[in-house]
């Protein structure tokens, strides 16, 4: 099968790759582009470990085809910090021990940022429902929810 030549933007930089028509964006990111920060926990849209932004929309990259990213803009965990400066969510997750194994963390951070980008004053219930698609088996979610709420509070205060 002929591979497709895809041109896209990843974390603000132009990128191109060759991919099979059936290859997912998740596989392309991890295997072709070398961005392994996006994780695979299920490949079926159930765990959220593969969360990325596609043209400003939160998606499970395991449910998107690599070819679909053509001409669009993809944001992954590798693009979240600004050089050495961590995003406030990343910093808060470290300060509040909101990660244990850290495997769900990239997906959770991407999803949480997508929430705070549109709503900097979410209720606990809103955060819980927004992150309901991001499974974490280690933390029981408590510290994750608190870290997101505390980041939002800081952002409002700033």
């Amino acid at each position, binding site marked *: 099968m002929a591979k497709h030549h895809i041109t896209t933007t990843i974390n603000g930089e132009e990128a191109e790759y060759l991919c*099979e028509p059936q290859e997912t964006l998740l596989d392309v990111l*991890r*295997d072709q582009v*070398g*961005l*392994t*920060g*996006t*994780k*695979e*926990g*299920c*490949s*079926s849209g*159930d*765990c959220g*470990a593969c969360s990325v932004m596609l043209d400003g929309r939160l998606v499970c990259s395991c449910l998107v085809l690599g070819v679909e990213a053509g001409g669009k803009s993809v944001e*992954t*965990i*590798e693009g*979240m*910090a600004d050089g050495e400066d*961590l995003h406030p969510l*990343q910093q808060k*997750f*470290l*300060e*509040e*021990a909101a*990660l*244990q*194994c*850290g*495997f*769900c*963390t*990239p997906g959770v*951070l991407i999803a949480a940022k997508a929430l705070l980008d549109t709503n900097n004053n979410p209720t*606990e*219930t809103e*955060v*819980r*429902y927004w*992150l*309901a*698609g*991001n*499974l*974490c*088996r*280690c*933390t*029981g*979610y*408590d*510290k*994750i*929810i*608190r870290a997101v709420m505390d980041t939002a509070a800081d952002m409002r205060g700033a």
Partner: protein
Amino acid sequence: MNEQPKQFKWVGTRAIRPDGVDKVTGRAMYGADLSLPGMVEGKVVRSPHAHARIISIDTSKAEALNGVTAVITAADMPVADSKPVASGEAMINFKDLANNVLAREKALYEGQAVAAVAAKTADIAEQAAALIVVNYEVLPHVIDVMEAIKEDAPVLHDDMFTGGVKPKPEKASNVANRVEFALGDADAGFAAADLVIERQFTTEPVHQGYIEPHAVVADMNPDGKVDVFCSSQGHFMVRAFCSQLLHIEMSKIKVTAAEIGGGFGGKTTVYLEPLAIMLSRKSGRPVRMTMSREEVFRGSGATSGAAMTIKMGATKDGKITGAYAELYLQAGAFPGSPVGPAAMTAFAPYDLANVKVVGFDVVSNRQKVVAYRAPGAPISEYGVESVVDELASELGIDPIEIRSMNGAKEGTQAAYGVKFGTIGFQETLDAAKATEHFKTPLGPNQGRGVASGFWFNIGGESCAGIRINEDGSISLTEGSPDIGGSRASMALMAAETLGVDYNKIKPSVVDTDATGYHFVTGGSRVTFATGMAVVEASKAAIDELRARAAQIWDVDVEGVVWEDGHAKPASTNVGDFEPMSLAELAKVANKTGGPISGHADINAKGAGPAFGTHICDVEVDPDTGHVTVLRYTAVQDAGRAIHPGYVEGQIQGGAVQGIGWALNEEYIYDENGCLENAGFLDYRVPVASDLPMIDAIIVEVPNPTHPFGVRGVGEVPIIPPLAAVSNAVAAATGVRFNRLPLSPPTILAGIAAKK
């Protein structure tokens, strides 16, 4: 949270973990994140049958497919001896392990590996796997534990005769083993009781549910050396198991611990690693293998489903006089369920004179169970804590009070053999009773449940190295895969002992060539045992630093003390010397004898048993049967919380896994013994919107055998939730279900039956 009086500079602080930035920026390398030049992808062929004889395997079509580099079956693997070896919290029989990794004569569960292929791409490997023709003779199967012990049940192993009974049975059966623990006379205890309650309970099999599927990259050189990179709870375990299974000398296998995306006991054994090595040997290339989520559910991990009888008697005023338990735990396809620890922990929270516990290890046609957080204890303690709750409510005694009255304390003789030293069970009960939560009134359809839990905690082998670098910074090496912040705890203990800044210490989990044998990350042992090694290594480095200062000052080493990160004269008699800092001593190390370091290779003894007490509020919707957890408090004695944030995290995460076990999670099999819910959509682990905040309260009753008092925290928190939730549901509905999970259909049926 109750903050302790501050006696330490670093221990007890919420320092940022040294591996943190890597983990929030996507840089951390987990099992599936490594690619090597020339690497090919491996794929496993799994049995579609729950029980079947393998008549033949034809790999020729797969081998002929373009891009395939290797195909293996059990014929490529050495035949293992039937030899039990201690591992994790169980004994491993390498013949069984070999069969579990790659089935030889029979497939004993759906999802068992029967062959594997490697090919240039994952797609080709998948196509090749589909071209492997396995000819099976399907056999009758059995899944349920009580079905499996029946006389006429299909027998999995015709050479298995129940151990632990005399005389040795003449007929093979699925009961691998019988265990018994007793103290006093249980029957006499029941005779002395005013109230005796006997109940039957069942729990369903559940999976650890780590979000990272198993993954490995193996690379075997033509000279026989092997490099393995994988996610596991013990790279020394991986080395030992692969060495045993494949007959490769340990020194030829180097295993590097990838970051691990959760394990909870499920990554204390090997699945893919030996296959990847074999495929690499045949391919002459590095091989990567990863499990899909479906493979994780079918072919890895999981703990027992169980059936049990619990009987307890008490006097009118609540004194428990006798206790009996009979436990049946699924082992999966090969012997080795956690029935031993289930039996040992069952009544351990209580100071009882008359106890008898009998347990049975039962094989059936599902994957071989592997450790899951406090293996066995959540099951048996669920039954016991449910009966204790029923005793309390029948006798009109407060549920915390009845536990206080009967609770184990220093000097209590446990039925499983030990006499407890300093323990903190009572303190967890007092702290639970003092919470505002426990006093808050409830509304209609709401109920509150209380339950406690006990786990031994373990020690075991660990090593640590402290190297003082020329600039005064410190490299700390150890070999316990960091599953939830242990690098931070190690660095905190080293900083405290050495008297230096936490940020001067860089801890690394190094490969199997670079440190000595470590037992797995499990049993709540790392902060205790590896922590003890770190403290001892730090002390050895301090002795060396003192010796260097003594040399510079030309005094006896006894004349030099180490305080606050400085060598100082022990008294004015020694002489008037300016204190020398660690950095100053490091700078001149080349003039005083060369590099400065300290090492400790230990087998840590004296792990401190730990207890927890949980309070759970639920609301039950009488129309849908849905249970909402409204509020949850988990109290635990940590001995000493080295990093309180990660201790709370363990408590919260364990509690939520227990809530999942109680409410949603279960393996569902069809009539052919095939798993029907092998995915996160149908096997529903708790999600953020299912839960309230989990209030974690740390109690600190220091373990006298650890330099900082650590007990270990990882396992206790999964034990109480099963009964705490179901006791709360009983309070809300007036129905004692005595089975898990408390899914809506179960609740509705129970409410309907009551009416």
